[in-house]
């Protein structure tokens, strides 16, 4: 026992461990900051550590080569002992990391922690957010399946739209004129060396700033930040009400960290790893590329925005958004911190998260995409075929054969690109239907060249029967209705 004490004292003397502890983990924080709302930052770091550990293990087996990457992932999934589980933990770790980082950011925003004098803490956090999203994007490329290949294609198409230097940027992104072996190696280097290195450096800066400027006290309504008095107030607070972060305030962080790790492990065990989907062979046309959930909102926005807004959304909006995030602590440098006195802040968070959530949901369901197999896979509901004339049944056949179903649903199956046609005859007269089919319009292609007159007749005869019960067929109001004789 005495020997151990001597060794410990010697180490402490040589390494200054007590001093290090007192200046870092043991630094004083306001007692009010020992709150469940303050656990998200440390939990994000915990996720990052999980990612580093599992990522390093995956690199034991993963081959960063376009010809072998996909095979090595299949090997990890099926042949390597626990390979599937490490992949799953890495995948779920990233999901948790992005989610918890978002919570951390919302909390910091709503508690006014970005205000004077913690502007740089916020700014380093914004850069960390961008780097983490960079990890998410490069990570899904390393999966090197069809989603990754076409995701790269989308990335290249986006940078290809940059005015003047688009072509050069595509070459830089893809490391050549086309997606190939060097493209994957480049993304591997970014995902495994460059971005994690930057994250480590910036996390150090972020934590150093937390130590230098102190953790934000739990804001009280009616106590605005005033530049001249705040530093003294904060020091007073620490003197009167300060507790060492460890062991007094760290308890909730520790509990939450354990919950997060448990969450990752359980999700990984229950849901397993993601993909890889089909191999990155671009001759396999039959594919339905979707990004991971972090980018589904952007993916959806690109489908829903009108064409003229795309350049705005792709290039101007990110600059404005990131610029706004970086400028936020200077724009609202002082004043009220508590979210209870900042309705605009609360409403912005609700609005932004709602928009992102709805867009992500739409990205997942993609109602704007034609259902490629609906014309051959979804039969016409039987009630639409009962007691029909031969011409009408023939029209139903035309409807399926000409792939109308890929965009128009009947009986709620089929594409959602165009309107459902269950009650179409109640909304459009026959001549209107003919015009729409032949000339197209709105978002519908013109079928004039692809349909013979007899096919149009049959198709219209079929569509004419699609009236919802309780309503009547549409009619041209300029023609007086025929009065049925008694």
């Amino acid at each position, binding site marked *: 026992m005495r020997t151990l004490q001597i060794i410990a004292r010697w180490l402490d003397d040589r390494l200054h461990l007590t001093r290090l502890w007192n200046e870092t983990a043991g630094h004083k924080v306001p007692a009010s900051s020992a709150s469940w709302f303050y656990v998200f930052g440390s939990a994000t770091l915990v996720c990052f550590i999980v990612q580093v550990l599992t990522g390093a293990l995956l690199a034991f087996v993963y081959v960063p*080569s*376009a*010809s*072998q990457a996909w095979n090595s992932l299949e090997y990890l999934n099926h042949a390597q002992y626990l390979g599937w589980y490490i992949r799953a933990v890495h995948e779920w770790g990233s999901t948790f990391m992005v989610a918890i980082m978002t919570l951390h950011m919302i909390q910091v925003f709503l508690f006014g922690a970005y205000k004077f004098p913690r502007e740089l803490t916020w700014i380093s956090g914004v850069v960390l957010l961008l780097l983490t999203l960079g990890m998410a994007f490069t990570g899904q490329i390393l999966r090197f399946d069809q989603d990754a290949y*076409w995701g790269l*294609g*989308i990335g*290249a*198409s986006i940078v*290809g*739209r*940059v005015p003047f230097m*688009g*072509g*050069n940027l*595509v*070459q*830089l992104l*893809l*490391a*050549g*004129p*086309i*997606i*190939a*072996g*060097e493209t994957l190696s480049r993304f591997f280097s970014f995902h495994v060396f460059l971005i994690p290195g930057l994250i480590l450096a910036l996390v150090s800066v972020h934590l150093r700033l937390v130590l230098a400027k102190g953790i934000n006290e739990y804001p009280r309504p009616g106590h605005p930040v005033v530049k001249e008095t705040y530093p003294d107030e904060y020091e007073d607070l620490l003197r009167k009400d300060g507790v060492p972060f460890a062991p007094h305030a760290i308890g909730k962080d520790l509990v939450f960290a354990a919950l997060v790790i448990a969450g990752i492990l359980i999700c990984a065990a229950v849901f397993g790893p993601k993909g890889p989907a089909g191999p*990155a*062979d*671009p*001759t396999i*046309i*039959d*594919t*339905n*590329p979707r990004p991971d959930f972090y980018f589904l909102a952007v*993916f959806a926005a*690109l*489908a829903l*925005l009108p*064409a003229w807004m*795309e350049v705005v959304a792709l290039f101007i909006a990110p600059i404005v958004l990131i610029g706004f995030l970086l400028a936020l602590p200077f724009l609202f440098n002082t004043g009220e911190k508590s979210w209870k006195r900042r309705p605009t802040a609360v409403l912005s968070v609700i609005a932004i998260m709602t928009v992102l959530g709805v867009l992500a949901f739409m990205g997942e369901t*993609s109602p*704007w*995409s*034609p259902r*490629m197999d609906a*014309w051959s896979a979804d039969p016409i509901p039987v009630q639409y075929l009962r007691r029909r004339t031969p011409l009408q049944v023939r029209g139903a056949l035309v409807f399926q*054969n*000409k*792939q109308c179903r890929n965009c128009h649903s009947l009986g709620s199956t089929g594409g959602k*690109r165009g309107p459902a046609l269950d009650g179409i005859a109640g909304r459009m007269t026959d001549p209107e239907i003919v015009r729409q089919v032949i000339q*197209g319009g709105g*978002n*519908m*292609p*013109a*079928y004039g*060249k*692809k349909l013979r007159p007899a096919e149009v007749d049959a198709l219209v005869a079929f569509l004419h029967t699609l009236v919802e019960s309780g309503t009547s067929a549409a009619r041209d109001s300029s023609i007086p209705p025929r009065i049925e004789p008694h």
Partner: protein
Amino acid sequence: MSDTARESDQGKEKTKGPSRRRWLLVVGVVLDGIAGLLLAIPLVGFVFSSVNNRKDPRSWIALGALDSFTEGVTKLATYRNPFTRPWDGPTANIACWVRRVQGNRFQVFAVNCAHLGCPVRWFQESGLFMCPCHGGVYYEDGSRASGPPPRGLFEYQYKVENGQLWIKGGEMPTLSNPA
């Protein structure tokens, strides 16, 4: 903390005025600047090589005998990308849509949607190309029919020689390099 501060204070006193120490500091910074520049030149040159050494990566590629393409039919053809590395694997297999209009008149479309590059699929019955990503649709001649694409499908240059159909490929078509 205070130790280092004291040390640097002492240092300041000693480096006041033109001294050997001061001279070494200046020379050291300048030399390191030059060394850093010498290191940076190859690094930057390496990184930007894919942009700087840009020659036209495209070359003529045979897609197959003329007989394998029927008039009035659009079908998928595949080729091995000419700009390739031994470790490219299946990534270097590239597909394109070949439409034999009439006789030796062809249209060869890139599979990449003009919107954001996803692979469009051909539907013979309705004569449409449809994109699975954001719902872009094109007519059989490649012109835009509906959806977000800002233009029609990208078309490769083609030629007919020795009874073969050739296209000029090797580059991913984007709005800034339309095939």
